[in-house]
């Protein structure tokens, strides 16, 4: 009330002063619109609401593009890894079992028995003295060592921890027994299957995708932020009217753009080189990858919320990622771990991401049926993000 009175009084005062000063030109001044009284040149540059955001995003993308290491680690390295592992573990047709026979009294008999067996073309047999045979076995050159004893008896030396060794023992044993006259009582037929979709490379590529999204999310957000903090660039930004939310949004947007390239490249590579089949829709794969990407962006933000030095954040990031590299089924299935810890493993964000990607890419599972995995990722990302904002230091 009082304020408005004062304002009115002030306005009246203004008029009175104006009248005094421009007494003679009063009538003209009234006709002319107020704008033309201040004939300043129009401001040459006016920024809109999103100018800060778009410039931050552009700067970030330019920086990434000009950083050859980033291009290598984010885009090339996963492809090389997929190529290398895909070739090393490709399903070789007629995978030969390599067997060493120790020289001795029964060695010739064992060799001829094997050669007479119906599966003889599957065996690569070498006769060696005992030392060389065992050494070769230790180095993985032989899957099995046959040590012939007296009266046609044989001893198998094999490693129960090596699947191919166990397999070799069973196959060689079958062959020897069959050659020696054993008859199978149940007639069987085997059909081989190495269809796209069930090979190691099919398992591997979604795992690499997940791992790559984790790596680039953690490094791309966590490391980048601490680096900017250490360089006092965050402090300098905070010294401007920059909206802090826009800054984080630009960072997240740059992650999503990179994500699209990462996922696209790796899937394309799998399809072209290994004839991998993608059953799920592009949309659902992209959605899963985006959620995964943002999840790890959130976790990265949390790891970077207080660290002042890039050395300390590097350690932290590796510490956070280590359990997931091991447990989350990137290179091999987590089914190999004791069932007791499976619930823990499945609660890790990378496990959820890998499982979701595999289900979608390899089996075409719709995203609706994957909501628990989505929920796990969103919870990890969301909780990290909220905590990060609470603890985050700009200076």
């Amino acid at each position, binding site marked *: 009330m009082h304020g408005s009175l004062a304002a009115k009084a002030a306005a009246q005062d203004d008029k009175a002063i104006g009248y005094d000063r421009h007494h003679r030109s009063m009538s003209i001044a009234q006709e002319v619109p107020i704008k033309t009284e201040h004939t300043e040149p129009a*401001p040459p540059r006016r*920024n809109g609401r999103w100018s800060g955001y778009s410039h931050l995003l552009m700067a970030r993308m330019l920086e990434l593009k000009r950083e050859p290491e980033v291009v290598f680690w984010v885009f090339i390295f996963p492809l090389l890894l997929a190529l290398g592992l895909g070739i090393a573990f490709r399903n070789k047709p007629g995978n030969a079992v390599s067997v060493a026979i120790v020289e001795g009294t029964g060695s010739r008999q064992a060799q001829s028995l094997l050669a007479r067996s119906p599966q003889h073309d599957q065996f690569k047999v070498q006769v060696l003295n005992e030392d060389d045979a065992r050494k070769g076995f230790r180095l993985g050159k032989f899957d099995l060592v046959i040590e012939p004893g007296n009266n046609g008896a044989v001893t198998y030396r094999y490693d129960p921890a090596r699947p191919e060794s166990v397999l070799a023992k069973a196959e060689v044993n079958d062959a020897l027994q069959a050659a020696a006259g054993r008859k199978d009582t149940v007639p069987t037929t085997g059909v081989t299957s190495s269809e796209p979709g069930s090979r190691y490379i099919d398992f591997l590529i979604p795992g690499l995708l997940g791992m790559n999204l984790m790596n680039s999310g953690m490094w791309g957000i966590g490391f980048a932020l601490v680096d900017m903090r250490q360089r006092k660039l965050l402090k300098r930004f905070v010294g401007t009217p920059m909206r802090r939310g826009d800054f984080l949004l630009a960072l997240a947007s740059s992650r999503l753009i990179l994500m699209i390239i990462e996922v696209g490249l790796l899937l394309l590579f799998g399809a072209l080189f290994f004839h991998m089949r993608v059953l799920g829709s592009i949309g659902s794969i992209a959605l899963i990858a985006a959620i995964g990407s943002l999840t790890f962006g959130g976790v990265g933000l949390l790891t970077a919320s207080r660290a002042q030095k890039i050395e300390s954040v590097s350690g932290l990031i590796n510490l956070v990622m280590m359990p997931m590299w091991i447990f989350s089924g990137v290179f091999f299935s987590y089914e190999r771990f004791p069932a007791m810890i499976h619930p823990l493993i499945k609660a890790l964000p990378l496990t959820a991401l890998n499982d979701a990607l595999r289900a979608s890419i390899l089996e075409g599972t719709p995203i609706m049926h994957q909501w628990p995995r989505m929920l796990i990722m969103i919870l990890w990302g969301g909780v990290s993000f909220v905590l990060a904002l609470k603890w985050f230091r700009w200076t």
Partner: protein
Amino acid sequence: MAISVSESFAVNLVAVFDSMTVAIQCRDLRKTYDGKVEAVRGLNLEIQVGECFGLLGPNGAGKTTTIEILEGLLQPTSGQVSIFGHSWNENEREMREWLGISLQETRLSEKLTVRETIDLFASFYREPRPTDEVMEQLELTEKADSWVGKLSGGQRQRLAVATALVCNPKILFLDEPTTGLDPQSRRQLWDIIRAFQKNGGTVLLTTHYMDEAERLCDRLAIVDHGQIIAEGSPADLINRLGGHHVVEFSVSGNHDGAALPAWRALPSVESVREDEGLIALNVKQPHLTIPALLETIDKQGGELQHLTTRQASLEDVFVRLTGRHLREE
């Protein structure tokens, strides 16, 4: 009723007028890091619009801490700050539109070009200046498309100032803007600061170069151990505290601390100190002191080894106040 209205209007006018002339003000500013390092210990400042004000002090005096509190980047342990009459927790975003800041050490992104960097900073403000104009002013035009990582130290420093000037600020905060620059680049930067001031801008800068403070600043505060130990225009400080002239000499033979009172008693001497084997007299009128000085030395049977006279500088002010040199050479 009418009277009370016009009175309150008058009060408003005074408040507006006051806040128009004082650009930066702080009262009893204190900052204690981690509960033990007392970096700033009760600092008061009042900087007028259009002034170039300098904080001069040795390493660790608390200059950066003070300027970052004034910039609203650091929370003081206690004390008030106001910028054009506004305090930092009141309207931060709006206040940031008025300030151009250059921190003591910011490493801008190396893989962006000069133009991209300035554009980026410009994008945060409502009405920034054209990037080309700022590059022109700071002589960065020919480096416009070079990466920041490929710039020399002086060019980077100029770029830091460019990012501060692109927002068309009312106040420019510069923390040691010329440290590490060659004399020519320093003078260039001084010209830019003067030009900014001539257009009505206010400048607060920190430095530990005496000559810079002396030539550039209208007023300055000498800061030591987080406190202001002297404040005024450079000429005023020198006259008040440095003596007008300094006569430095050394005598062979007997010269010990006990002789100092004898030098103090010479005509026109304001103060005496011993400094790295030289005796330095602050003197008002050297032509009165020097003959008397020569006579005294003669009487003592000593021999004059070295004699210089010069105008007193801020360095002398600092040494007089603290017994230390501003910069350990």
